[in-house]
């Protein structure tokens, strides 16, 4: 089966500044991958590249079978991206925003209404919240509304940029349930998270991919753990590329038992 995401020496620039400096990464269908790395490592840029928001300068990037070098738009119908911003309209209510997003992705009016209501219920956007203009929401509520758009679109590939940021404990639990449900439904999830701590993997992640300086780099060995509770082996790290920066050396990331592999560019 072809990987959901296949990047080869992918380079993306902001002006002349390299956001991604040659990323090679495969993400399998149905996999949950946690992107880790310090600020400026390229996590957000990698997610924006995968959803077609960031143009590919060189290398290759194939996402859900769509070659992003040829067409960045086609893949967007199948991708759900939760960025740092909510992408919502302040003047519209939560429900109006969701219905617009659902209809924009191809649903008819009835289907858009149904999907919006299901998504709002899943994110506990109930009571007066559906009829509340987004401008009047708290940061956490706005974040949940943005996530509801992704949930309602039912994407094949979920790209979640620090999805836990701004959420309270209950909402984080719901978010993790949603991620589990997405994977159970066959979707692929790539997420980054600072909230978990740079050296921790998301508990649902199949593996952690560490980024630094716009590249995928090796993560150091797990501290003492060589197998998870189920006896699954935790992958041993491969050699670091000679050209790769090593900002994590002084504070090495730790693989959790749930992590299985580390990809090295």
């Amino acid at each position, binding site marked *: 089966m072809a990987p959901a995401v296949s990047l080869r020496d992918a380079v993306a620039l902001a002006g002349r500044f390299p956001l991604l400096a040659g990323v090679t990464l495969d993400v399998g269908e149905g996999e949950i991958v946690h992107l880790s790395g310090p600020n400026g490592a390229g996590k957000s840029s990698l997610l924006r590249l995968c*959803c*077609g*928001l960031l*143009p590919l300068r060189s290398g290759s990037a194939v996402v859900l079978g769509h070659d992003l070098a040829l067409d*960045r*738009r086609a893949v*967007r*119908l199948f*991708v759900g*991206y939760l*960025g740092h*911003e*909510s*992408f*919502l*309209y*302040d*003047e*519209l209510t939560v429900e*109006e925003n969701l219905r*617009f*997003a659902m*209809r*924009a*992705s*191809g649903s008819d009016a009835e289907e858009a209404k149904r999907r919006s209501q299901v998504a709002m219920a899943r994110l506990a956007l109930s009571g007066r919240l559906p009829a509340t*203009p987004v401008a009047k929401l708290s940061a956490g509520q706005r974040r949940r509304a943005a996530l509801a*758009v992704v949930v309602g679109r039912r994407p094949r590939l979920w790209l979640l940029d620090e999805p836990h940021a701004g959420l309270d404990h209950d909402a984080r639990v719901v978010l993790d349930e949603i991620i589990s449900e997405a994977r159970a439904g066959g979707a692929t999830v790539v997420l980054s998270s600072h909230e978990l701590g740079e050296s921790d993997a998301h508990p649902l992640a199949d593996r952690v991919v560490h980024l630094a300086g716009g590249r995928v780099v090796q993560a150091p060995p797990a501290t003492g753990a060589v197998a998870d509770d189920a006896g699954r082996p935790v992958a041993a790290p491969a050699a670091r590329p000679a050209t790769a920066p090593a900002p994590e050396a002084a504070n090495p990331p730790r693989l959790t038992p749930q992590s299985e592999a580390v990809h090295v560019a």
Partner: protein
Amino acid sequence: MLRDAALVCGKDLRIELRSKIGLNQVAPFAATVLLLFGLALGPNRQALQPAAAALFWIAVLLSVVLAVQRSFAVESADSARDGLRLSGLDPAGIFLGKGAAIVAQLLALEALLTVGVALLFGAQLSGGLVLLGTCVTASIGLAAVGVVYGVLSSGARVKETLLPLLLLPVAAPVLLGATKAWDEALAGTPGQAGVWLSLLAVFAVAYVAVGSVAFGPLLEGA
């Protein structure tokens, strides 16, 4: 594409009805422009009447800048523009939808300003069909060119000053054609306005065509 256009137009109009920016800011701005022109030219209606069409369309043109800026400001807040790009909407549909919303706002504004020039300048509103036809074709042209330059400037740091610099010179043919067509109508010779209406129609068709093709790449590059 037309479905997407209707969706975007409905969304933009709903935002404008909710925010009332057009009612509370753009319309008073246009009325103030008319009033100031009237003050500058003096109270003599004999002097004001010949200038009524020009002053009307200058007020409309300046208001277009505000309407276009507002149309793209709602997309800039919270990176809604990225949401629009990710939505799967046809870029040509987005262009037509945003343009149609601006046309609707301009027509409402022009109705208000028409009353203004009648009251302030004593303009005789003869040639109603020509007046209406001019408003419709000029509004389509102005909205189309406004959306093209609006998306072009929306990604710039200096978008507030860049947009009028780009838009106003390009919209000069509309100012000329619409003013001449209105002059003919107000002078009681609406039959002479055909050539100017044709100019407005050509401008509108050209910019709708160009915008439908160019909007996608401009949106991606903004």
